[in-house]
């Protein structure tokens, strides 16, 4: 029995459940589209669908997320071979993490993570 059958079946069922739930309303719910319903939700000052740009902070967060995610992944690898690598592994990973902490301190200093 291919060991991947459970994952493929659950993935398929999950996506099918999502599609059913997502498409259900189209068939079951009443449909009386009025212009008012079609508009997106606006409250307060009626603003034209302006296309102003969002702040770059989100972008910097995403970049730092990737680079620290890679660090987490390498730490998982080290956690797998922790006991047989003993002190040698610890020193090795300590150097790896310290260099990344230097990057982290640079980011803190330049205030890239300051949310206005």
């Amino acid at each position: 029995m291919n060991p991947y059958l459970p994952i493929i079946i659950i993935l398929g069922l999950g996506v099918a459940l999502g599609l059913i739930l997502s498409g259900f309303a189209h068939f079951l719910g009443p449909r009386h589209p009025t212009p008012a319903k079609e508009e997106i939700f606006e409250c307060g000052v009626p603003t034209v669908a302006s296309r102003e740009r969002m702040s770059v902070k989100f972008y910097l967060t995403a970049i730092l997320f990737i680079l620290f995610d890679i660090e987490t992944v390498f730490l998982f690898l080290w956690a797998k071979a922790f006991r047989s690598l003993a002190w040698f592994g610890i020193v090795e990973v300590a150097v790896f993490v310290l260099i990344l902490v230097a990057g982290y301190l640079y980011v803190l200093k330049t205030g890239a993570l300051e949310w206005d």
Partner: protein
Amino acid sequence: MGLTSSELPFIVDLIATLSKIVVVFLIGLNVPPIMLWVERRVPALMQRRRGPNRVGFFKWRLWGLFQAVADAIKLIFKEEAVPAMANKWFFHLGPVFSVFPAFLVLSAMPFGEYIEVMGYQISLVAVQVNVGFLFILAMAGMAIYGVALSGWASTSKYTLLGALRASAQMISYEIPLGLSLIPIALVYNSLDLTEIVKGQSHFWQWGIFLSPLSFIIFLVCMFAETNRTPFDLAEAESELVVGFHTEYGSTKFAAFFLGEYVSMFALSLLCSILFFGGWHLPLLSRENLINLTGSVNLAALVGVGVLFLKAAFFMFLYVWVRWTVPRFRYDQLMKLGWKFLLPLGLANIAVTAGILALNF
């Protein structure tokens, strides 16, 4: 993901796997309605008022449990208004991305060691992934698409900002989540969840005692990953008008609702597996539980019951915290994630590695 194919004969294996998948989906589809009821009943009791107790047949009110059924039916039959300018494809695809990762995480959870049926030992985990909680981190990553796509697809300013904020928050709390799991992997010397629970057979070997700091970080990240209360700014009514799923109507909103509660349940299961000894009773080790109850199956059943009790406690904690703790401001929220939890996680790994290195 590195599955170990068991040596059971084909038919038995097939039936076992299919039944386990059915059990996972039964659990997954039953948790949200119950949580819908809990979400209304518990705060009512906290605030000395009576929760929903009107819905019912004749004289069976069952303390308002039918309210959940009534809500579900209402959600299904409501009209769905798709905004005109919305990007149709992703508008419909958004909820799907938030449903299937939750079920995959739930299926990777071990509910027990094994049960013996007709002489075959069947493990109680639907998807035996020996890469362990990396699979769970991967699925947490996929849930971000559900938020981002649905926010972007309904082209209003509010939902776009809500989607950006919600996914930026989920992103910045996924790193401390990953870092908090590493000490557990170091202490129990394995990434596989079943091995970790086997390592916690005695009361003092539980994860919360061996690395308390990673329990704290994990608990905080648990709330942040599912956008629950102290961290639910992206959906806050006062701020962004329910954030990224403002434009979603009936069953699509139910899909987001289902995805959120199933991932909440999966994370509380994970928390009780990693830090509270999974299916082990505090004072009764597994061996004398088996001779006490006579058969392995009964002991496994008790184990599953214990595990679900612990997970139920964490679900109650979600609701309890929701009605007691005020909401974070967005910059406080990001500062906590980046400037406090990340260094704390790294320090926690260093301390754990140091202590474990003493007895090399």
